């Protein structure tokens, strides 16, 4: 089997050949001890997380020999100035970037679409304060909207990335979220306007060091891209996929339009294409989960955060170049640094435990929202992720009831209704969904958002009315 050193089969894997600089494949003592929700919008946990005592684990990109930190900084969830209606807080971002660089993180992944279009500029400002060779920049051609499909508009987006990121080369450039809208959409975005050819030329010219794509949705597009790679039509230097211990085997159970992480990763591994991992935490759902699942993990490693399991899982296969985490608060960053300095790979026993947790998770009525905000802004003003996340939180707390006879009814009702009013203003709540389905076009998890919103609204309405069966 060609390139079988990349083949990842956790069930049969016996030992791990670490490419890590730190070399050590054992977990150093005193590692992180908080449950930090890496993506949730709640206030950061103030407890101290011990930053790993060892050195960051690094992986080497076979194309350019880049030594990339296993923890990559996802720049889609930067903190905003409190009370500013989403204006990013440059000072706070600078601090996070400085701290990350100082602790060995060197991969920063942004996009022209992130944070309402502010991410590239803010990330660029923070990084430009450091030597250009101390970090790798990944950004994307995020021309999703039909109005940006023209060559001019796409070029403008590409050129702006250089301007905003204050650089004359981009280390990793991705075609952003291909697969949504199938091959038709892909052709409109990259083939018909000649953008893909242009980007290949740019790679020749050295302005792009690695060219790849990030993938969600229709598997036909993923397979076609790899076919082109095999045929020599285009060489992909890396590919960004969604992978975590739930998606590894159960992606189809969450949504049949999704593809298991196992397939995606192995397809890349057998071609020797390094994989960048997104959604290692499933948008925070693997950082806070129902109580019995939490205790299963805490039983195994009492001092490790719940999130650390997901990060260790995502970082374990050797064909993984880096694992992205959108860290809003320093606590998230510290916890992840602890997890990855150095990485303690998931053992076969632990893998079995995680698969058990994954299977059990699927029995909860959790909405598979990752809080990526691709659906936002909703044209009718709803706070879609806010609604879905509050619902999920109630599921995790065990505060979803089915009858007024439930002894927990009064408490659950109050938690749900008061909590919803607190998190989401009344006019942005689920009752206002017009079923226009605009959001569904953008959801990388292929959630039928209006259907979920209506389900949650009907539940809330039954609670308000105090109906016997909810």
């Amino acid at each position, binding site marked *: 089997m060609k390139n079988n050193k990349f083949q990842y089969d956790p069930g049969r894997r016996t030992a791990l050949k670490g490419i890590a600089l730190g070399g050590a494949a054992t977990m150093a003592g005193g590692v992180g001890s908080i449950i930090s929700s890496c993506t949730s919008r709640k206030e950061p946990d103030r407890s101290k997380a011990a930053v790993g005592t060892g050195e960051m684990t690094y992986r080497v990109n076979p194309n350019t020999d880049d030594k990339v930190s296993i923890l990559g900084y996802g720049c889609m969830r930067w903190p905003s100035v409190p009370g500013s209606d989403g204006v990013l807080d440059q000072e706070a971002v600078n601090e996070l970037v400085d701290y990350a660089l100082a602790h060995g993180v060197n991969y920063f992944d942004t996009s022209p679409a*992130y944070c309402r279009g502010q991410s590239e500029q803010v990330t660029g400002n923070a990084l430009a304060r450091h030597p250009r060779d101390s970090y790798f920049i990944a950004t994307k051609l995020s021309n999703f909207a039909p109005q940006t499909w023209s060559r001019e508009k796409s070029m403008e987006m590409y050129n702006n990335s250089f301007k905003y990121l204050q650089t004359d080369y981009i280390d990793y450039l991705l075609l952003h979220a291909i697969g949504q809208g199938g091959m038709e959409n892909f052709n409109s975005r990259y083939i018909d306007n000649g953008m893909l050819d242009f980007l290949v030329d740019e790679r020749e010219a050295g302005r792009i060091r690695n060219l790849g794509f990030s993938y969600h949705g229709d598997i036909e597009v993923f397979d076609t891209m790899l076919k082109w790679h095999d045929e020599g039509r285009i060489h992909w230097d890396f590919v960004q996929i969604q992978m975590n211990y739930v998606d590894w085997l159960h992606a189809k159970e969450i949504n049949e339009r999704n593809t298991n992480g196992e397939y995606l990763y192995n397809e890349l591994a057998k071609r020797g294409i390094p994989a960048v991992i997104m959604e290692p935490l499933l948008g925070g759902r693997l950082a806070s989960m129902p109580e019995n699942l939490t205790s299963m993990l805490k039983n195994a490693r009492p001092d490790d955060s719940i999130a650390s399991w997901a990060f260790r899982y995502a970082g374990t296969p050797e064909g993984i170049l880096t694992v992205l985490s959108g860290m809003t608060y320093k606590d998230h960053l510290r916890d992840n640094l602890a997890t990855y300095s150095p990485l303690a790979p998931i053992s076969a026993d632990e893998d079995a435990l995680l698969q058990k947790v994954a299977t059990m998770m699927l029995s909860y009525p959790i909405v598979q929202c990752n809080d990526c905000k691709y659906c936002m802004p909703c044209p009718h*003003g709803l706070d879609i992720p806010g609604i879905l996340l509050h619902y999920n939180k109630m599921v995790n707390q065990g505060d979803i009831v089915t009858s007024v006879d439930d002894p927990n009814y009064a408490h659950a009702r109050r938690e749900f209704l008061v909590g919803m009013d607190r998190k989401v203003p009344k*006019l942005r709540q689920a*009752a206002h969904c017009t079923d226009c389905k605009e959001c569904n076009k953008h959801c990388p998890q292929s959630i039928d958002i209006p259907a979920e919103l209506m389900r949650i609204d009907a539940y809330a309405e039954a609670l308000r009315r105090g109906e016997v069966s909810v």
Partner: protein
Amino acid sequence: MLKKLRVVLAVIFIVCLTALFVDFTGSAIDPLGWMAKAQFWPAVLSFNIISLVLLILLTFVAGRIYCSVICPLGVMQDAFNRFGALRVRKAARKFRFAYQPEKKLVRYIVFVIFAIGMIAGAFWAGARVWMALIEPYSMYGRIAADVVKPVYDAGNNVLAGIAEINDSTLFYRVTSVVGSGPAMWVALISLFIVGATAFVAGRAWCNTICPVGTLLGVISRFSIFGVRFDESKCTGCRKCERNCKAKCIDVKNRKVDYSRCVTCFNCTESCSFGAMTYGIRRNIQATEPAEPAKASCDDASRRGFMTGLAAIATASVAKAADALTDSIKPREEKTTDGGFADITPKHNPEPEQPIVPPGAISWRNFATHCTACQLCVSACPNEVLKPSTSLDTFMMPQMDFDLGYCRPECVRCSEVCPAGAIRPITVADKSDISVGMARVYMHSCLAAQGEAACGICARHCPSHAITMMPFGGDRVGNDGLPLRRPVVDESRCLGCGACENLCPVSPVSAIRVDGRDAHTTIG
């Protein structure tokens, strides 16, 4: 001893009644709702025989206990009177008043105007609601709702903020419609006038302007019990007279004007010789006032005139017309992730026929009973009831679905109304009562225009009166599905406003409710 008892009871009454107004959880209605129903004028309007008989009997037997214990406006004046004492030199604090003859002319003229207004109210609702400006219970109601409640809510919201930081749901944030608009100005002005009067002149308001005071005064003039002189003990020191905030004790003639005595027991408490006691009146004959004082008569009527004038002024500036802009906004294309689309607040035109809550029976029944006390406005948890600003229904609550709708599980306004304007109903009754009718305006409806499948109105209609029906043949909407539009079954529509409130078209909804002048039952 009697005074202590009076003070304790009075404090309990005013605190509990205020609690009834400021409470937003609805939990005060059961234990405290009767206190509003025990008020005299609401009892008259709602023809509450039990309350009326008890109050008249109480007054006839014991004097105007009502005015010193039950009436919140009276008790509030005692508080202001106490503050008023502070401005006086300490030694003189307890000797601020002196006997004044009854201002009989003013009392009865004001009362006659009030009575005429109330009777005229049967023909024009405005007459009654304007008279309510001097009706003591509703005056206090407006003060509690529009001055005290906003402060209470603000305090609650501070606690809610703290609870939020601690991830607790013990306190939650509330918003309310009180504390703004003409009703608040009326409340502030009456608070100022009554407060200032009490500050300098004790119970002058109760004994010259207040129509309930005048009416009960007629009864208490002949009451069985009262304060009386023990002429064998009285030294004529006038201590009782100087302490009487009703200015009704004439020591020189050893007489008490029982029509003005509010049985506060300040006199019995202050007499050093035990010459003032409370018991069966020795002399059942009414005390005649020495002479009507004309000079101060003008003073009081001027005050009344000013109240009216100020109220008219604030009401007439309050209303501003808004243009109808009911068109669908073009949707902006999404290019980046995150953020929120702006939401235009609702501002629907007023319905042709004002909508009044279930239990009101008809617009006419509602308008002829309401004293505009704002208790229902404070009690409404859905921000539906708002005080009207138009002159003929001034400050009377009206339903308006811009901020919320009349939720099917709530009957709080019907539970609290003491005046019979909104009669008590159950949640089950409510599911049958139709207070209005929804109408669809096709040209702005998202579904009819093919912008979205929508169906929000149909989904949220508590009586399932709205269905989404295909129309327009082969035409399809943005989602490729056949066009559908909401259709209202008028025989099932309750007029609750869920459709109007939740309609995504803003500021003017594509489905709106008009009131029914007489409520009907459906089904």
